[in-house]
């Protein structure tokens, strides 16, 4: 029996992954443990090893396309099996399929289905619509359980099929009328007819770009957060004079001891990690009808990579001194750019800080990164007139907004955290 190579789940909440690069090609001999491809998740790139020793056959997954976890991407034919298979030209995949008995279930209905659909999971309705619209299911990304293609996936693919002059079902039994009605039924959008109406409709709709794997995860997690966690927001405007001075002094000290220059974000993370010790309910998660108080303080820092949101985590931030935190932060940022971070380093924080000050944002509210209980949104530091001792003076001020999950955090608890944050940033000596 040939061994199926599936797209593995390399991270807890991973639903899809992208094969970044194949290290082998059709017909290559691999040994168990050899790297056969690289998989990209929303958080990292990892190497995947061959599950068996044998010849690689029927590579079905292209690089750069999001694939659902569990989808077979190739097979490894073991020694004896390879021997019974004559060597075919690697390119002629269809011929391979015809000559080589396909592994497992596809054999049964190989006659009825092309190679394109035999390894795929798709619902009967999805197959029907694909059949009627002459759509190759292989080109469709399944978003259902274990990568199953459902009606909505096929419909999305049909809408994406860009050329309106496409031979939509011209050579399909049932004719264009039938398929148009199916497409209409399926898509919920009702093109008046196959031709011009559809075209003008499409122009007004703009470009439809399917979510990337990361976008899909971000969308689902943050929707989930907004749906389940009742958010409330507290904003404090905090004077940054002392914090700024402190950063200046720390920069010199770090230079002396060979640590990276600390950024404001690192300083805020350090301060937050310190005061979170006194506010266990902010460093907590809602779990069913209970509050999980986390034993450790792991602070996630929201970052952007190629347009995607990623949140590397300063693990056990509560135990780090400033140089350690600056070093760890630099390592994470570096690793993120080089995509060498593991999924573990990119998930599982207990509290998140998102700083958009460098983009000139004055203040904003953030969506809690589930299952955490709170997130701190930091705006820019800007000189503003404030009243001090009866005088209007200019001071560097910044807005901090805490989003809290009201299921576990009450207003007063969040306010106390914000009060301590203000005190610590305005008078850092209180941290001593």
């Amino acid at each position, binding site marked *: 029996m040939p061994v199926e190579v599936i797209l593995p789940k390399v991270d807890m909440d991973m639903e899809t992954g992208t094969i970044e690069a194949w290290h082998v090609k059709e017909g290559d001999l691999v040994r168990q443990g050899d790297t056969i491809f690289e998989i990209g998740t929303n958080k990292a790139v990892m190497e995947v090893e061959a599950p068996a020793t044998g010849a690689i056959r029927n590579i079905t997954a292209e690089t750069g396309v999001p694939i659902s976890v569990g989808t077979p991407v190739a097979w490894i034919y073991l020694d004896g099996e390879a021997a019974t298979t004559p060597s075919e030209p690697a390119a002629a995949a269809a011929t391979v399929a015809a000559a080589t008995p396909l592994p497992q279930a596809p054999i049964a209905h190989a006659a009825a289905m092309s190679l394109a659909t035999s390894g795929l999971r798709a*619902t*009967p*309705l*999805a*197959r*029907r619509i694909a059949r009627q619209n002459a759509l190759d299911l292989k080109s469709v990304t399944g978003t*259902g*359980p274990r990568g*199953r293609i*459902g*009606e909505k996936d096929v419909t999305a693919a049909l809408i994406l099929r860009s050329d309106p002059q496409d031979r939509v079902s011209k050579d399909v039994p049932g004719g264009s009328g039938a398929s148009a009605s199916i497409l209409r039924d399926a898509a919920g959008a009702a093109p008046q007819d196959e031709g011009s109406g559809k075209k003008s409709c499409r122009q007004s709709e703009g470009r439809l770009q399917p979510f990337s794997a990361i976008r899909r995860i971000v969308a689902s997690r943050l929707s989930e957060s907004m749906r389940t966690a009742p958010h409330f927001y507290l904003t404090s405007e905090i004077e940054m004079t002392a914090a700024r001075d402190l950063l200046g002094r720390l920069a010199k000290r770090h230079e002396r001891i060979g640590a990276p220059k600390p950024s404001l974000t690192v300083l805020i993370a350090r301060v937050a990690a310190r005061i979170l010790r006194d506010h266990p309910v902010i460093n907590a998660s809602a779990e069913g009808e209970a509050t999980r108080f986390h034993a450790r303080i792991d602070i996630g820092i929201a970052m952007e990579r190629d347009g995607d949101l990623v949140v590397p985590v300063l693990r056990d931030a509560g135990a780090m001194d400033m140089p350690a935190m600056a070093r760890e932060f630099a390592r994470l940022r570096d690793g993120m750019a080089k995509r060498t971070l593991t999924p573990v380093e990119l998930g599982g924080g207990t509290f998140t800080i998102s700083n958009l000050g460098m983009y000139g944002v004055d203040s904003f509210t953030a969506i809690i990164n589930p299952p955490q209980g709170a997130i701190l949104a930091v705006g820019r530091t800007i000189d503003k007139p404030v009243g001090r001792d009866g005088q209007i003076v200019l001071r560097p001020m910044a807005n901090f907004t805490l989003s809290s999950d009201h299921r576990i955090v009450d207003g007063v608890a969040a306010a106390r955290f914000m009060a301590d944050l203000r005190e610590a940033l305005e008078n850092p000596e209180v941290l001593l």
Partner: protein
Amino acid sequence: MPSDTLEAVSEIRELSYAEAVREALGQAMEADERVFLFGEDVGVYGGAFGVSGDLVHRFGTERVIDTPISELGIAGAAVGAAITGMRPVLEIQFSDFVTLAMEQLVNQAAKIRFMFGGKASVPMVVRLPGGSGTGAAAQHSQSLEAWFAHVPGLKVLQPSTPHDAKGMLLAAIDDPNPVLIFEHKLLYKTKGHVPAEAYRVPIGQAAIRREGTDVTIVGSSIMARKAEAAAERLAADGISAEVIDLRSIRPIDFTTIAESVRKTHRLLVVYEGVKTMGIGAEISAMIAESEVFDFLDAPIIRLGGADSPIPYNPVLEKAAVPQEDDIVTAAANLVRRGEA
């Protein structure tokens, strides 16, 4: 009273399920002297669940008969009475006790019409209070309807509303063949609109209790009611569920189910009987074998009773059969994730 006033009263009149059954019995006995009622404690005591109530006082002990505790004897007497021209309605005090009457129901009542080439028929009705939820434990809480739906020659009904309880009982009494009506014990006290006149609800026709587009939920008896309540909550969550109340599981209204699934592409079957080998399996297979298969966008999901005797412990008893929450969760998962 002028007749239009009577009509107005009839329109808003509410009866409990038990009262509706009693009214049907009374009307049938008034209309046809061949109809009589018998069973354990149906007379002076008024029935274990109070269904027969005052009927013994209205019709006398010759037509409302208290029997000895022998289900086989009652069922055999009913078969004999039916063959010889009567219209017996018998009550099996708890549907669980029907095990004792199996020979008469399955080997005699169901077969006689066929084996006598149509020269004899068995127009009898069996009423069976069933289902869990009353703390009556394993021998008084089962849902055995699927057993009888497996027997050609029997009709099996599961009305879910007072309206259907009355209309289906009257239709069953009219029917020339043996009909079993499973009445869920928890439904007896539920109320609903019941017209005063004698009317019939046709046997073998499902009712669409709520129209929807995202998922079809099929249930009968109390599960139809739970599905309706679940659909209400699902609607608040943006999911449009179509609820089909089977009303009759043999004959089964496959057309209504199939048309609904063709529209919604998803099917959830809910039943209180043990999930394994239950009516959900039959409905799932019917859909999977039919042309509607090509319209499924997710696996068919069954929610059925646990593979366990009904526990006495009230918490476990509840957990052993599908509840409204289970239906909501299963339907939402089916629509949103494509699995249960």
